[in-house]
Structure formats: structure tokens, C-alpha cells
């Protein structure tokens, strides 16, 4: 790993952040595109959530009885009703730990 490669990766990353903010003006996006962009959070974040649950560190699918699936379900239920970010994350982590340290141990 060289500083030059980090800088190259950094510049590339900065361009992904800056391009649309600095170079696009409101008139360039039509109403139809704006309506579709309303869905950006729902269309992007599951691509981080699903692999984070269903694919392990070695890049293969987990078993269907993996504690992560249970933890994620608990997080969804707690998040849905509590509307609280800390409660959602804690509930998921604690139920996950409960399974790996208490039940499966």
C-alpha cells in the first residue's frame, strides 16, 4: 500500500461525492427523475444490509439457522415499533450475542 494509491482512491471517492452536488443544477433533473430519486435510501441501503447479514467473511452464504438472521429480525421488529436507532442496533446486537454466547455455546 503506497500513499499514491491511497490518494488516487481518495480523489476518486471525492469525485463520487462532489460530482452530483457541484455539477448538477435543479433544471437538469426532470420531475420524473426526482420522483424516482425519492426511493434512493430504499434502493441503496439494502445492498449494504443483505450482504452484511447473509454473507460471511469468506464471501459465502450463511446457514439458515445463523444467529445473524435472528438478530436482524429482532432489530427490524424493535426498530419498527420503537422508531429508535439506539434501541434497534442494541436489540440486534444483544440478541445476536445471546445466541452465540449463551444458546450455541
Amino acid at each position, binding site marked *: 500500500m503506497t500513499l499514491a494509491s491511497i490518494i488516487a482512491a481518495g480523489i476518486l471517492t471525492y469525485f463520487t461525492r462532489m460530482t452530483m452536488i457541484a455539477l*448538477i443544477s435543479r433544471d437538469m433533473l426532470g420531475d420524473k427523475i426526482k420522483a424516482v430519486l425519492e426511493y434512493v435510501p430504499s434502493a441503496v441501503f439494502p445492498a449494504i444490509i443483505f450482504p452484511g447479514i447473509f454473507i460471511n467473511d469468506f464471501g459465502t452464504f450463511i446457514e439458515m439457522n445463523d444467529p445473524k438472521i435472528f438478530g436482524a429480525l429482532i432489530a427490524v421488529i424493535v426498530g419498527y415499533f420503537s422508531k429508535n436507532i439506539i434501541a434497534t*442496533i442494541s436489540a440486534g446486537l444483544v440478541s445476536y450475542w445471546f445466541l*452465540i454466547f449463551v444458546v450455541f455455546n
Partner: protein
Amino acid sequence: MLTKKQLFTRGMLDISPHMLSVIPFGIICGAIGVELGFNPYLVYAMSFIIFGGASQIVFLQLLSGGASSLVAVTSVGIINSRHLLYGAVLSEYLEKLSFIKKLLISYVVVDQGFAESNKFFKKNRSEEYLHYHLIGTGCTMWVCWQIATLSGIILGSFVPEELGLKFAIPLTFIAIVVQDLKKIDHVIVMITCGMSSLLFFDAPFKSYIIISPVIALFVAALLLRLKK
């Protein structure tokens, strides 16, 4: 009308619960770099220069696995290309800013900051200094990320791997989208994205992270057409 300071503080408060997952993830990110045998200064330089959690870990793992710099840099670019979508959404709210301010604010646009500021923007369109909310979320994230990755670099192998703290990342994003499960169209878009991400997980350069949102947005466009 809220003042700049109030909006900045509101941004800080809105993103701070996510630090529960961001800080452990940052610590892991720093620790992995040192454990893979990289120069600690370079591992830290990534947090400052790239400033993007998942992409930093992939960068380290690819290089330690013997991939060329070109492959590693390309992968970082592709993983982070999702920011183009965030920028497209945010541009509407930031258009009144000067070009220089747009260039500066762009550096702190991150996943959770985009998500929380976008929620705030939708409800408070008329505020004059809206962008201070985004600066608040972005700066909070930046400071915590620097401290967390530095701690990870210092702690190194002391970070307990068996806790599975990486799992906090999907949880933080569940907290962001969970309220949209009330809307059937959003549920369809989420499932499309999630299933596509598993289907294309092995696509080159980690491109599943941008392929699946594009497919999901295409489905969203179809849904909008059906609604009419």
C-alpha cells in the same frame, strides 16, 4: 426559522445514535489494517483521505491478498459510486450554495449523514440554512471516524473478533430504512435491491453495491408508472 448553530446541532444529534455502530466499525477498520501488516500511518491516512468505512476495509483486504493497486483503487471507486445517488438527491437542497461551498461540503457526505439529513430536509424544506444540518451530520461522523480508526490502529489485536461487531453495520442501516417498511412500494424496492446484491455479490470490483441500487431504482420507476 432555525439558526445555523441550531441546524448544525440538530444534525449532530440526528446522526449521533449511529455512532453506536460506526465507532466499533472504525476500531475494527483500524485494527484490520495493522493486523494485515500495513504501515500504521498509511492505515490512518486512509481515514483522512478516503474517509469511507467499507471501502477502506476492501482496499486493505485486496492489497494484502496480492491484488494490484489498480484493482484496489478501482474497487474503492466503484464501492463509493453510490455517493453519486446521494449527491443527486441532495443537489436539490444545496443548489443555492456557492460552488466553493459545494466543493467543501461534498467531502463530508457519508451514508448515515445523507440518510439523516435527507429525512430532515424533506420535512423542513423552507429553512434557509439547511446545509448546516448536513455539515453537522458530516462533521460528527468525520470526528468519530478519525478517533475510532486511530483507536483501532493503537489497540490492534486487542480488539475482540469473536464479538462480531461488524454486524452493527447492517443494523445501523436497518434502523434507517425500517420505517419505510410501512409503504409497500418501498418494500418492493428494498427487496429488489437486497436480492440483487446477493445475486451479484461475486460481480467484479464489488460492483454489486451499485448494480443493485440501479436495478432497484429501475423497479421504482416502473412502480411509479403503475401508480398513475
